[in-house]
């Protein structure tokens, strides 16, 4: 009996060989057949010639997180054939390019070997030159289409969409696909193939109303819907596609009637400049952001402290990657947490939003500006490579209907009615002063914003008392932030074991908890979505007995911050860390918890 709508395919190729299109076609076809899928791309920091893997996970149970082993490995890369063959689960399939002339006969007895002579099949397609090289990839899609019984009509639509309806390209790809199918029909024994994809009809479809999207595209759309008008950036993996998509979609969504741009994007000379441009624009009243990753974040430090102390609304979207220094640019981690919350010298603390899915990237793309302008401070959004660049299944996005919160900005008219307006004075007791924007014509409005010591009237000072008045108000503001930032997501089962995670670890949680339940371990779950911690976080932790905290970094950074912010609670937690650069798996979580629970 074959396993239906529940399999993991790992496609091993060489980067720069054009496999991305073929893989997307495969993924989209499964998705359009009504089967939940996830796509994770494991790629090198290199343009051509190094190994790359694309993982497609189809799961009727909605488990789309990473798994250590695959059911089907498509081995197209001779460099890694040997190690790739080890990634096949017992009982699984190794579908390999038999041009590689590699004797796999004795390699593994516990899996099904499927040889496909790719070159020979490509040669049978009537195409010339460059395009022919790229066809190798679509051949394996054809073979899989036959073996998995993919829906032909949907497959054709996916090909068409992938190549933007360019007829000649679509044609030749369809031809190649056909050849792959034919080969499979003629030479492969489908009855031995253990996996099958079954199309779900309208009623049973698990993907209706859903989209497949990466977090960087989602963030770009969220930021547009959230009213971002300015972005300055410096290219860096894995954040570049965020601003590139922002430009692309803003050009479609943000034009005046006479074709002018209601947005601006500047590719800066470095990250020092990009964050400074953002501060200039934020001060002047535009919703502005930059996107970056670790090394860029390091360069931005001085300006981050400026934004905090001078209280300039601004947003840094950090798509985290692995490691200190250059590290591993194309691998994922959550290791910028501490360096975000406490970024810059002196006494600083910054609110941080932590999306766990592309859907939340879209949501936080809108929320971040309301918070930045309400709190008059720099807001971090910490995404990571797994969310930012991989394909996740999400509910179709809907633009929020909530009006923008532009915060405490005094217009000329309001200033006329106000006596004693001072830029850095706490009038409402919430730690948030009023501000005025350049261009406002009222004698009380203008001030010189400065990073040097200033008093509540925005005047230069070196007086300790005046300094304290301003920075102690910033502490009050931090308390106010707790009531405004996104609350955690909590599933409280009144169980003895609790799991706490944040960010992209989300993709493994549902599966991990199901695995644990099968072992008789019920769990509560909380996903933290922001710092500072709201009351709900405190309450959940105080109710927990044994709390497992998942950090995708070496030094348990979230645990450290919890200990600092909630010293009475932080010490009871059991830390699970995963930091080799891959998304964490459900197995790793469940095995860790079981081992600890059973002693």
């Amino acid at each position, binding site marked *: 009996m074959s396993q239906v709508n529940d399999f993991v395919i790992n496609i091993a190729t060489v980067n720069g060989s054009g496999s991305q299109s073929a893989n997307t076609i495969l993924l989209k076809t499964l998705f359009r057949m009504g089967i939940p899928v996830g796509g994770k791309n494991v790629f090198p920091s290199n343009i051509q010639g190094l190994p790359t893997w694309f993982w497609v996970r189809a799961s009727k149970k909605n488990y789309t997180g990473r798994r250590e082993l695959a059911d089907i490995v498509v081995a197209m890369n001779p460099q890694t054939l040997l190690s790739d063959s080890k990634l096949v689960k017992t009982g699984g399939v190794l579908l390999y390019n038999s041009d590689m002339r590699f004797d796999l006969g004795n390699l593994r007895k516990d899996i099904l070997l499927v040889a496909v002579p790719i070159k020979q099949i490509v040669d049978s397609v009537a195409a010339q030159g460059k395009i022919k090289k790229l066809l190798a990839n679509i051949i394996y899609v054809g073979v899989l289409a036959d073996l998995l019984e993919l829906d032909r009509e949907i497959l054709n639509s996916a090909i068409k969409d992938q190549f933007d309806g360019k007829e000649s390209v679509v044609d030749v790809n369809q031809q190649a696909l056909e050849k792959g199918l034919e080969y499979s029909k003629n030479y492969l024994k489908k009855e031995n193939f253990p996996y099958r994809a079954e199309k779900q009809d309208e009623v049973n479809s698990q993907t209706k109303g859903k989209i497949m999207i990466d977090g960087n595209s989602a963030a770009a759309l969220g930021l547009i819907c959230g009213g971002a008008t300015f972005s300055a950036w410096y290219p860096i993996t894995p954040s570049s596609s965020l601003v590139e998509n922002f430009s692309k979609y803003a050009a479609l969504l943000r034009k005046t009637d006479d074709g002018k741009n209601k947005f601006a994007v500047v590719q*800066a000379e470095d990250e020092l400049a990009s964050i400074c441009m953002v501060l200039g624009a934020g001060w*002047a009243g535009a919703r502005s952001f930059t996107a970056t990753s670790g090394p860029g974040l390091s360069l931005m430090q001085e300006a981050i402290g400026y934004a905090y102390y001078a209280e300039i609304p601004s947003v840094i979207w950090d798509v985290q990657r692995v490691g200190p220094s250059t590290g591993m640019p194309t691998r994922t981690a959550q290791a910028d947490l501490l360096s975000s919350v406490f970024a810059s010298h002196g006494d600083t603390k910054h609110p941080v939003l932590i999306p766990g899915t592309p859907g939340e990237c879209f949501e936080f793309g809108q929320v971040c500006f309301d918070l930045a302008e309400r709190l008059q401070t720099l807001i971090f959004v910490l995404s990571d490579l797994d969310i930012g660049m991989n394909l996740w299944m999400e509910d179709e996005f809907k633009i929020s209907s909530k009006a923008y919160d532009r915060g405490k900005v005094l217009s000329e008219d309001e200033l006329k009615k106000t006596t004693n307006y001072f830029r850095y004075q706490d009038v409402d007791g919430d730690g948030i002063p009023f501000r005025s924007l350049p261009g406002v014509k009222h004698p009380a409005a203008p001030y010189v914003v400065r990073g040097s010591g200033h008093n509540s009237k925005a005047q230069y000072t070196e007086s300790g008392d005046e300094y304290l008045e301003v920075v102690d108000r910033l502490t009050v503001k931090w308390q106010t932030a707790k009531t405004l930032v996104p609350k955690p997501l909590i599933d409280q089962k009144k169980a003895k074991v609790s799991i706490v995670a944040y960010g992209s670890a989300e993709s493994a949680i549902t599966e991990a908890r199901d695995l644990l339940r099968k072992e008789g371990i019920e769990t509560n779950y909380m996903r933290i979505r922001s710092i500072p911690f709201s009351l709900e976080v405190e309450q959940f932790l105080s109710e927990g007995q044994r709390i497992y905290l998942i950090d995708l970094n070496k030094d348990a950074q979230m645990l450290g911050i919890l200990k600092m912010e909630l010293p009475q609670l932080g010490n009871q937690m059991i830390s699970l860390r995963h930091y080799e650069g891959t998304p964490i798996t459900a197995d790793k979580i469940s095995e860790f918890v079981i081992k600890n629970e059973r002693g």
Partner: protein
Amino acid sequence: MDSKIDSKNEVPILKNKIGLEKKDYAGGASTLCTGCGHDQITNHIISAFYGLDIDPYDVAKMSGIGCSSKTPGYFMNKSFGFNSMHGRMAAVSTGAKIANHRLTHIGMSGDGDSISIGLGGFCHVIRRNLPLVYVVANNGVYGLTKGQFSATSYKDSTLKSGEKNPFETIDICTLAIDLGCTFVARSFSGDAKQLVPLLQAAIKHHGTAVIDVISPCVTFNNHDGSTKSFSWVKEHDVSLQELGFIEATEAVNVDYEEGSVELIDMPDGSKLKIKKLVSREHDVHSRLAAMKVLYESKANGELLTGLFFIDENQKNLIEVLELPQQSLASFQGMDLRPNDLSFKKIMTNFS
């Protein structure tokens, strides 16, 4: 300018065309050393804006860090100011200008601020031709950190201690010309007659206007052996032209010898009047000529001042970005949220 008689004092009070007195352009009291060149620049900036009848509310004062970068606190209290970080004036101004290009931005910087730590920003703001009056108050030292050499100090010039500078100097003007700057001038903080019209032309200029203003540091770099001291500048200053500024509303009636005066049209209809000095034939529209005259004067041991290059025809950054008349900062929610239909269309890419 109008003059009215104050009934009490019987002193005429001068007002400009928008009804403001010069004191309406004043700032806070300066805390710089008595006699510092930077304070002279402050006064010339006040004169320039007052003379152009510009409402201080329509101006944003930008700066980095240094004694020179403190000056925005000392002029035009009714203008917003951004005293930013060391070397970051250019980048901060880029964002501020893009968010609200309806304001006039004047950037105050120092030689340390612009030519060492902020050199990248200096180069790139010029490349982008951001509409910005970019004043480098150039004293050849780091004033605020007590007198270390800066990158504009001449080779072999000395510190107060006698220590010699072993490194080549960076020339702000030739660098700016090479980078494609559309307005390049040099002046001296003590030369109101030259600097005020230069500032006025820079304010009206279409893109980035760099003015390298030699501005002596009386405390750390005014000794013998310095090439930025008052006496050195006075002895070596050679003016390339005599300059004057004519507002758009003023009638042009100049009597001059044929060919000796050029009127340069600024975008708003005002004009910069350039009276060429007999021995100094220079075409301000030629980068090559500008480089030549600068290199030659330097070889002759002169400090050449004046307008070296101007080009009003290059697109500025605001035009390149195709921004609307309205400032980005002024758009509100209803202008910014996409409509459902076009958003839905984009969603179909992902299904």
